[in-house]
């Protein structure tokens, strides 16, 4: 088996049976990255030395006859907005091009403690603002299924890198769909967990009330294993939840779906949804029904205003969070300026890219005197309404099934000149972040042109295990797990 097809289970078994060493495995991934990333451009930093050193420690433990931890030795990678001590963390921005965090993020501490091997840092939209990965200050990542297409964003590098076979599992962050959207476009599984179940300590902030780190896997089981490793309370994150989510996802997901109630919200299947996407997702619903789930339609009138509320709130929070980049303490500094104010303005003007500037200005506007009531306050009230509508829906349904993205993956450059059209691609994912609930995107099929299509399962808070049950059953039924993986077509 080639490493591009390896699942977590294959790594776990192979290491324990000594079919290969962890150093051999890591070297094979590094070699694959070096050969193929010139096409995909998923990587910003490759941590070769550190990864080989870590893998050698795993091998030594095995050679010494010591037991290794559950996920120890599994090669992974992180979106480049997750702080890694001494390894540059750029957020794909000129502003942080040479930033070396002095500490590890909470999830990195957990990954290191559990012995996963970090192979590198993935490309992304600058400061996680974007839906195509074209907003990276370095280069756009390409979709491994067709290099002329975007991989989705903002965690596009994490999704494309996984689809391209550069790691066994990867991690990203999701503020309004930034894990689920690229998972859908790249034909992998992406999980946005319940807000507060994964530490945000050391995740470079975009919209703090919405940001959440989550996992990517080539199948549902891998994504669940990767999530389980990083979930848990962190006292360094004031929004971290202490309990309610320590679940054995892998055994629970195999329980079947008989009797689970699934709602199909009419507003997520109407105008603006590509017919190929709609048909693929509805076919998924049929398969779940065949497996014993109870499927029915209902009304959930949130996509349009949810999108507005999301962009108002996230931009407002971004305008505040990104106020820290002043060219003085860390990050890009316009050192040619002799005046203090001039240095701050020039550093921000030269250090931030166009989309980041656009969001900061929109956020500043939404919070400014005279407009606060009309925009920010209204958006916050609508957020309340979204939560209530979801609460009501989850009294009747165990999960809600929708397309992840209304459209098929688009070509590089296709939407760049039209920011509103780009924002509309997030219309089905943002409400999950407004409500703080979990959601999974998983492959449901392929378009006639051979591009992946994804469906989204949303659940009530702390219902990740139900979503994994449904996703696992559907994955088995669709048998997409057996399809050739992306790099075979590159």
């Amino acid at each position, binding site marked *: 088996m080639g490493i591009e097809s390896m699942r977590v289970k294959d790594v776990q078994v192979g290491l324990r049976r000594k079919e290969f060493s962890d150093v051999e495995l890591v070297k094979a991934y590094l070699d694959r990255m070096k050969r193929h990333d010139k096409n995909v451009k998923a990587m910003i930093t490759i941590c070769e030395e550190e990864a080989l050193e870590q893998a050698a420690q795993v091998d030594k433990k095995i050679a010494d006859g010591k037991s290794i931890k559950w996920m120890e030795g599994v090669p992974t990678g992180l979106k480049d907005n997750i702080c890694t*001590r001494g390894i540059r963390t750029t957020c794909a921005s000129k502003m942080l091009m040479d930033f070396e965090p002095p500490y590890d993020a909470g999830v990195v501490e957990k990954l290191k403690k559990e012995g996963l091997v970090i192979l590198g840092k993935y490309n992304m939209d600058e400061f996680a603002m974007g839906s195509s990965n074209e907003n990276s200050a370095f280069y756009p990542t390409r979709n491994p299924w067709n290099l002329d297409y975007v991989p989705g964003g903002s965690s596009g590098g994490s999704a494309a890198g996984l689809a391209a076979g550069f790691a066994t599992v990867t991690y990203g962050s999701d503020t309004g769909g930034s894990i689920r959207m690229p998972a859908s476009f790249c034909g992998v599984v992406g999980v946005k967990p319940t807000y507060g179940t994964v530490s945000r300590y050391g995740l470079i902030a975009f919209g703090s009330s919405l940001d959440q780190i989550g996992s990517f896997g080539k199948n549902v089981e891998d994504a669940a294993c990767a999530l389980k490793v990083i979930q848990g309370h962190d006292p*360094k994150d004031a929004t971290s939840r202490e309990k309610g989510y320590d679940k054995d996802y892998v055994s629970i997901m195999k329980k079947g779906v008989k009797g689970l109630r699934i709602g199909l919200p009419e507003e997520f299947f109407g105008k603006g949804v590509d017919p190929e996407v709609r048909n693929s997702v509805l076919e998924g619903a049929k398969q779940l029904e065949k497996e014993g789930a109870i499927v029915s339609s209902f009304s959930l009138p949130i996509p349009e*205003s949810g999108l507005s509320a999301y962009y108002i709130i996230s931009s407002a929070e971004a305008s505040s969070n990104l106020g820290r980049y002043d060219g003085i303490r860390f990050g890009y500094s316009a050192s040619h300026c002799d005046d203090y104010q001039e240095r701050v303005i020039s550093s*921000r003007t030269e250090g931030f890219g166009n989309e980041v500037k656009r969001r900061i200005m929109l956020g500043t*506007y*939404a919070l400014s005197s005279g407009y606060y009531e009309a925009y920010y306050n*209204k958006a916050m009230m609508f957020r*309340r*309404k979204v939560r209530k509508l979801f609460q009501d829906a989850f009294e009747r349904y165990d999960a809600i099934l929708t397309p992840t993205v209304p459209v098929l993956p688009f070509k590089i450059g296709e939407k760049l000149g039209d920011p509103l059209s780009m924002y509309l691609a997030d219309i089905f994912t943002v409400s999950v972040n407004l409500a703080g609930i979990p959601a999974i995107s998983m492959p449901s099929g392929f378009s006639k042109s051979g591009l992946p299509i994804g469906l989204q399962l949303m659940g009530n808070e702390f219902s990740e295990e139900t979503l994994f049950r449904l996703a696992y059953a559907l994955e088995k039924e669709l048998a997409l797990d057996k399809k050739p993986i992306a790099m075979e077509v590159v």
Partner: protein
Amino acid sequence: MKITRETVKEMAALAKLRLKEEDIETYVKEFTEILHHFGQIGEEDLTQWTDEDLNSESVRLREDKACFFENKEGLYRNIKNRQGTAIRIPKIVD
């Protein structure tokens, strides 16, 4: 909602950003379109919710306790213009 060149300039000034003259017109067009779309949220019936609802969520704050941060050298490494343990900045007061 019509956004003017002056509004865009004011937004940039508040955000501590400098815009090129030729970019202002582009932002006027984009912001007019985006804010028109966002403004549709005003048509939602939100009478059920009040400002008090928005402030009712409890915010948990961790204890305000000083902690020792061991990697001081790592912290200083990112300062572009450093003098010992201080940051050199342009003169603020004449």
